[in-house]
């Protein structure tokens, strides 16, 4: 069992923020433990030099640390081969890398199948191939926010070359059955990509067991620093893929009219890498491992159970929440609204009678501002998932998302504060 109060002591920012501050925006980014900050500091104070190039000791030490970080993080996600792990800036860049490189092999009429619950970073990189005649298809969700398997099957065709899916939705908290979908994708001859930005930080993820061909994630969402992310890829596919960015490190030889690519993973890491970031992320992985990902997951399950219980008890009028209710398929993400405000665009008329009357609904911006006044940090907006937000029929949602340093009392404060908002704005 994991005790959040003890965990909190490892995070200097909570000393700064003071007691009673509930940081509930972990789906956006997470706080950093002292060990991660120290690892970064140590690199810059004792090893700082550029990797690969130097024949001097300092550079060799830095290179060695960089390799160790790669191995450690690869092991953390269940890959025995460190070369299968490419360092990027974040999950977004990882998804762009794979979309850009694999996309070059797509022909007009080929299809990419994603879902309506994707983050923009798993939508837009594929849209960039629409002018080349590639088709982008969306599997729908059911009324509870699970992936609709019927819709998935319907959209899977003989032309589906790539299936790219979010492992855990950053809005609904839905945990998708990656193993099953991977199997279906592979039976169909498609490459299977998993966006693990919200799963790798919060649950055991094993690429071999899941059978995914690619896995993208961000360091900053798992206690690591900003500016470092990863793309795991199956070696045989990576070796055949064309590079993403061109420049130093990614080449073996350069001539006036052509170059010879370096081996994987360097082939995909052009320019000076974020060595301190990789070392910091490796320290974050060690920190998470010290608790065990099973324990991280069960802690968040407890917080979600508390959330559902309090939601029932509080009986806040017009409180609507989204996503699956069974804890097995649900991560620690709680998106909600007070009343429903439908999306609109310039084409839709603002109606004089009904417009201002969003009824007793409270706009998510007002919810987040009001909660901020109660020392609770939540996010409001479309959470970089505009198609999903509109699919839910709303203009935006407010979202609380948990991590290891959050406690049941944070959840209690959250519901107290939501009740306050409802009263404050309902007087309208």
């Amino acid at each position, binding site marked *: 069992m994991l005790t959040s109060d003890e965990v909190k002591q490892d995070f200097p920012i909570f000393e700064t923020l003071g007691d009673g501050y509930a940081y509930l925006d972990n789906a956006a980014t997470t706080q950093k433990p002292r060990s991660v900050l120290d690892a970064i500091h140590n690199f810059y104070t004792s090893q700082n030099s550029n990797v690969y190039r130097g024949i001097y000791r300092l550079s060799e030490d830095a290179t060695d640390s960089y390799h160790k970080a790669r191995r450690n993080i690869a092991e953390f996600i269940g890959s025995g081969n460190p070369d299968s792990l490419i360092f990027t800036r974040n999950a977004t860049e990882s998804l762009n890398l794979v979309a850009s490189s694999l996309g070059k092999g797509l022909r007009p009429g080929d299809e990419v199948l994603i879902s309506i619950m994707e983050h923009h970073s798993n939508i837009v990189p594929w849209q960039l191939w629409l002018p080349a005649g590639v088709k982008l298809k969306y599997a729908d969700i059911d009324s509870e926010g699970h992936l609709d398997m019927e819709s998935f099957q319907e959209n899977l065709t003989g032309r589906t070359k790539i299936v790219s899916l979010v492992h855990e939705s950053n809005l609904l908290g839905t945990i998708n059955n990656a193993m099953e979908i991977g199997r279906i994708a592979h039976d169909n001859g498609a490459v299977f990509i998993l966006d693990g930005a919200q799963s790798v930080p919060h649950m055991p993820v094993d690429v071999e067991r899941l059978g995914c061909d690619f896995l993208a994630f961000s360091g900053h969402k798992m206690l690591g620093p900003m500016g470092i992310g990863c793309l795991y890829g199956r070696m045989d596919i990576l070796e055949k893929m064309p590079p993403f960015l061109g420049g130093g490190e990614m080449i073996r030889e350069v001539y006036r009219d052509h170059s010879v690519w370096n081996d994987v993973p360097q082939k995909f890491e052009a320019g000076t890498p974020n060595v301190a970031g990789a070392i910091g992320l490796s320290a974050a992985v060690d920190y998470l491992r010290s608790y065990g990902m099973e324990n991280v997951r069960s802690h968040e399950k407890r917080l979600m159970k508390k959330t559902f219980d309090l939601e029932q008890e509080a009986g806040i009028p017009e409180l609507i929440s989204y996503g699956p209710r069974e804890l097995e398929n649900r991560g620690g993400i709680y998106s909600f609204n007070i009343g429903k405000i439908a999306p609109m665009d*310039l084409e839709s008329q603002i109606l004089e009678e009904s417009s201002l009357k969003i009824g007793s609904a409270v706009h998510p*911006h007002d919810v987040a501002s009001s909660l901020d006044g109660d020392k609770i940090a939540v996010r409001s907006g479309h959470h970089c998932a505009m198609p999903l937000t509109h699919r839910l029929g709303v203009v935006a949602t407010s979202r609380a998302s948990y991590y290891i340093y959050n406690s049941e009392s944070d959840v209690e404060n959250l519901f107290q504060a939501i009740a306050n908002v409802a009263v404050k704005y309902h007087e309208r």
Partner: protein
Amino acid sequence: MSDEEINMEILLDHYRSPRNYGKIEKPSVELVEYNPVCGDAVQFTLKIENGILTDVKFIGRGCSVSQGAASMLTERVKGKSTEEVMNIGPQEILSNIGLNLGPSREKCALLSLNALQKSVRKYRDGEK
């Protein structure tokens, strides 16, 4: 009550019972402004006579800041010259609201000023 609390109450009052809410029949100009990120929207209808804003109404939808600010703005500009309307700066709006909004919500607060000044520009372009 602190100043901040009083100002919040004033804004919420405008939000709950907006002034100059509605549409002017046969306006000199009308315009919709919209923030796709949060879905806040306002529509202004203006009556302009001899360079004076003789009447202004708005309808809209969105958070307390965007809608409250729109209501406050209509009170402020009615009877002013279009010249004066065009000279209102964002800082004036923000200090009139008197809340520490932070950069993202300042956009909500300024939506209506943008809409109003765009309306005047549209009117002037139409006159040429």
